């Protein structure tokens, strides 16, 4: 790692693990201290081997699960936090979308890495949507999406259907905010995955009431012009 860069490059190889770091970082000190913290001086705990979460193998948590309750509490707090800073339903959905966006960007890389040698870069709209409906959904929620449809009125619109989004399972939106769908968070994740695969689009979450599935949600994916043109060429 220390031999990769040219001697006068502006980039300094940086790793939180001081044992493999070379060069001198000019701006910020490394994330983990060079010596273990003294007792009573700070509340941070450091593993004695000085390895951090960034040094773990990426596939280590592939099979791990998170309790739904923990996520529900965290997500509830995220919504309350977002609510304090915005002044309308559109803004709130946008804030949740941005929160999901950051996750989606990284998730795309992780999932493609985990697919290994068989990973294929999706170039067709249907391909990437299948990736989202199957792989991404399975990774996030343990089950594939419940439906994928193409809109008949608009060429550039596709709909991903989820009968009972996990993120909304504990949330009851009050009547005065009935337009809000907190799955805007998941819409953000989807949007980031699509943007990262070079399918620029806009994704929004809409609640559709049905007798059988009272909290059915439809993610409306609206692609930009460039995507349609490319699709037409590849056809």
């Amino acid at each position, binding site marked *: 790692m220390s031999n990769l860069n040219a001697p006068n490059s502006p980039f300094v190889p940086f790793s939180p693990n001081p044992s493999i770091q070379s060069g001198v970082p000019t701006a910020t000190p490394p994330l983990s201290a060079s010596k273990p913290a003294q007792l009573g001086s700070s509340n941070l705990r450091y593993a004695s081997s000085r390895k951090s979460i960034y040094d773990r193998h990426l596939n280590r948590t592939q099979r791990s699960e998170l309790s739904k*309750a923990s996520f*529900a*509490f965290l*997500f*509830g*707090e995220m*919504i*309350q936090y977002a*609510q304090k800073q915005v002044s309308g339903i559109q803004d709130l959905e946008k804030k949740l979308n941005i929160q999901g966006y950051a996750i989606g960007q990284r998730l795309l890389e992780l999932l493609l890495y985990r697919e290994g040698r068989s990973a294929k870069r999706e170039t067709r709209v249907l391909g990437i949507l299948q990736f989202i409906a199957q792989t991404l959904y399975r990774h996030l929620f343990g089950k594939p999406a419940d439906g994928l449809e193409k809109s008949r009125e608009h060429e550039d619109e596709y709909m991903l259907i989820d009968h009972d989004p996990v993120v909304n399972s*504990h*949330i*009851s*939106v*009050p009547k005065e*905010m009935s337009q809000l769908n907190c799955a805007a968070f998941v819409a953000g994740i989807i949007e980031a995955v699509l943007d990262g695969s070079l399918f620029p689009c806009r994704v929004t979450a809409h609640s559709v009431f049905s007798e059988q599935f*009272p909290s059915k949600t439809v993610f409306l994916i609206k692609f930009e012009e460039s995507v349609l043109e490319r699709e037409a060429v590849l056809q």
Partner: protein
Amino acid sequence: MVILSILILNKAGGLIYQRDFNEGLNKLSSNDYLVLAGTFHGVHAITSRISPVPGSGGLEVLESDQFRVQCFQTLTGTKFLIFAEPHQPNIDVICRRVYELYADYVMKNPFYQIEMPIRCEQFDRQLVAYIKPKQ
């Protein structure tokens, strides 16, 4: 299982949820229910005071000719009152399930303000599905 109605009181004794499931109790106005809740809260506190044996909790079961109330007090001071028929078995199980539903659909709801009246649609739906499945 025939449950007549459920009341939930917050820490201060205020009524935060009231719902009738079956006929059997008189229909009172919402003000009456508020007064009832406050009275019950006070009585619950006194019953632990007048105990002849030291270290008693509050009132747990109240019996009358036509109904029976079971009061479940959580560690946080919230009281769940379940009104049922006099010979209804397994009210404990029902109490615990209602508490579970409360923890799931009220406490995890970001739009619910603690100690305020409960207006969560999911909680209502799940409760009705549990207590009165046919309807």
